[in-house]
């Protein structure tokens, strides 16, 4: 078991009232699994992600990563655990004023010693720069290596986030809406890429998806969340229309963005953004 969650709850104590994001959530993930998390907005998917990549501590329950209990780890142990988990966030999680290449290099931070950090700050190593260029090449951003992240379009930023994770070379990839702002053909390419990456080296992939079609096509196991707990957890083949309709219709959110259309039109901003290269003078 790479992940083992037992009755994990997460409550945020806001000034007005406690908000329960996850309620006694239980699931196990084996190494090499591909899991899609479905569910309308606001059911705790993002909270679950931040628990899984060890940036949040559960309020109660046990969360084990590869056998180790996360809530009692020291800072050092946490750091080495996080290095093994790569997260592709929804948005705004790149360093906007760094170039694409530099953002990609950030994927390696968890591996660097103190001395290497100092050295890379002055001049990143040849080998890592080459790896980073390869990662950018893979997501089709090699020509933008010299652009600041905030000068890239939404879709390009998404791909850059994927490149950063490729660079990190983790055992587990967590992806929060990884294809949200990509156009359909690019979505296809990158989904296949992620799947290939995971299958070839027995990595684990956990992704939240708005888009049910993609989820059913690329992910063998589907977990649906509802009100902070598991609504259903089964192989993709057994999921049927009625179950999905029940999942989305019980939440008013879904009436605004029907699941079948979500993510289809957002590729509009995928136009070729013009940027001013910043790293050559």
């Amino acid at each position, binding site marked *: 078991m790479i992940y083992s969650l037992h009755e994990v709850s997460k409550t945020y104590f806001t000034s007005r009232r406690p908000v329960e994001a996850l309620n006694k959530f239980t699931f196990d993930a084996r190494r090499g699994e591909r899991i899609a998390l479905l569910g309308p907005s606001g059911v705790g998917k993002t909270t679950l992600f931040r628990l899984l990549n060890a940036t949040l*501590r559960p309020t109660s329950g046990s969360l084990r990563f590869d056998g180790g209990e996360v809530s009692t780890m020291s800072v050092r142990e946490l750091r080495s655990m996080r290095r093994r988990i790569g997260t592709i966030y929804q948005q705004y999680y790149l*360093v906007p004023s760094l170039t694409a290449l530099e953002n990609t290099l950030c994927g390696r931070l*968890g591996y660097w010693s*103190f001395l290497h950090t100092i050295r890379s700050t002055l001049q990143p190593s040849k080998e890592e720069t080459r790896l980073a260029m390869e990662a950018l090449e893979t997501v089709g951003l090699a020509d933008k290596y010299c652009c600041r992240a905030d000068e890239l379009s939404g879709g390009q930023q998404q791909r850059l986030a994927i490149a950063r994770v490729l660079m990190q070379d983790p055992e587990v990839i967590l992806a929060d809406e990884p294809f949200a702002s990509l156009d359909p053909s690019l979505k296809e390419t990158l989904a296949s890429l992620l799947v290939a990456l995971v299958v070839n080296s027995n990595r684990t992939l956990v992704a939240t998806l708005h888009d049910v079609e993609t989820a059913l096509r690329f992910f063998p196991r589907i977990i649906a969340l509802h009100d902070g707990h598991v609504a259903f957890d089964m192989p993709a083949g057994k999921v049927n229309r009625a179950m999905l309709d029940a999942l989305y219709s019980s939440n008013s959110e879904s009436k605004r963005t029907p699941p079948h259309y979500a993510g289809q039109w957002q590729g509009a901003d995928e136009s070729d953004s013009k940027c001013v290269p910043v790293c*050559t003078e």
Partner: protein
Amino acid sequence: MTLNAYQSARSSDQHNSRKDNLVTLRRLGSAVALSVALILCWRFAEIRPTAIFEPSAATGVWTFIHALFPPDLSPAFLRVVAAATLQTLAIAIAGTVLSVLIGLPLAILATPTLWQRGVLIAGEPPSATQSLLSGLSRATRALFGFFRAVPDLMWGLLFVVAVGLGSVAGTLALAISYSGVLGRVYADVFEDVDPRALEALHGVGASRFQIFLRAIWPQAVPSIIGYTIYSFECCVRAASVLGFIGAGGIGYEINLSMRMFSYGEVLTLILSLFALVAGTDAISRLVRRRLNANVPSAFLARKGLQQARGFISGPIWSRSLPSATVALITVLVIGWSFYATGFFNSGSFDLGLPGRVVRLISEMFPPDLDPGFLRSLLLPLLQTIGISVIGTLIGISISVVLSLPAASTLIFRDKYAAGRNSWFGQTVRWLIYLSARLVLNVLRSIPELVWVLVCILAVGLGPYAGTLAIGLHTGGVLGKLYAETFEEAPSQPIEALRANGASPLQILIWGMWPLLKPTLISYTVLRWETNLRVSTILGLVGGGGLGQAIYNNIQLGFYQRVTVLIAVIYALVLTTNWVADWLRNRPVLFNLARLRVSPYLKESEAPQL
């Protein structure tokens, strides 16, 4: 498709590679120039790093600290302290009111959108009146620059000559100095107002006065109030220092007690100064919050002005107090402040004043351009520059060390963060955080001139003491600003880096620095400009630089030389502004990593798809 793109990127890199040598050469050249400049500054500031470790330094400082305790709390002296503190407060209030009265009308004249360019001007043929007004408008802007460039203590010295020792001189000095600051800020706020409102009123034939009243003023008023209150805070600090040159208030008492070696009194006075500054800050923050008028901290340079925001909701002054009461209190406070500073006192402020000012000005001309005198200014001038540069660098080092533990987001772990949380670790973090904040506050609240006196005890008279003083005060000021900047950093990129397994150091280098670089640079450069102005007057108390020459020439009545000194300071400040703008506009200079791909990738290594 990507491979082609990649190759084209590479070929442009190769094209650049010939230029690379040139770039490297140029970079080497500027590095050498920078080092030489720094070494010169170091020499002129007469830095002797070992001096602070000599036994005499430790003895001097220790004797001083030892003598501070116990503070003098005798009733007689406490009465003196209270009177001095109130006088400082009165100077600050009266100075602020006067600076608003001078600054506001001039600011309307200085607003470019009203007189110089923009929608109101475009259609009109430039009439004689129009050109005259446009010229006046430009001249007013330049005047603001001049008012600001000459340090307030310098204005104070001149007014002491014109109206005699006492708080009237201090008030007038603040009024002139801060009317320059406020006028410029007001004019910038007026200029930032949405021009469409102007155009609409202009279209229906409104006069400029009406346009200002109906279109500009309502939009600008929250920022105006916010900045005015903020400037009052600054005035309190400035007023406390003006006493050093005999312009009344708490500074006068501190200077007196320092010179009489009554250090117990000094401690009482400084504690009272703390209380005054902290109280003013708290009240001003309260008022600003109530008015909902936000100000970006520390006037965030001239370019930060756009960030002024927020509109007054509800009645302007207060929601709980009836506005008549508030207005009455305000009038009373202002009236008291003018009474307490002696404006109604015929002895220090009478109808003869304008005559005396005119006589002083006429005695200042023609400027004394004797070559011997000019030559004698060169060394103090270079000293002044050296003090400001090295002092700022010392301040930066202090503030970097102290601001990291003083930033709550850096020192504490998020209450939701994963992993072990021990109460012991938490306690230690709290202790470190609180002590860092305390040290920063002490460094910041003690004015530079007091620090100079303390540093003289340690390393003796001269520019070194001035440099250390600037360094200590700057460390406090920048440390607080840096800590606030760190706390306001966007959390998401940082969280992503942390989730990658980045260490705290890596988060600083690869996350915080690129995210916050422009703000940090802007604060630092702004502070350096301030420090340059301060270092022109440190000589008043023996801290080196031009101050000694200023003091001597004013005391001896060589006003024609004073004119030259003012001109020199003005030129120096203008040059600094230019350098500072140059630095601000080149954030690339402060990039940490030098990332270029071409040197790393051989043709054979090009990634294959």
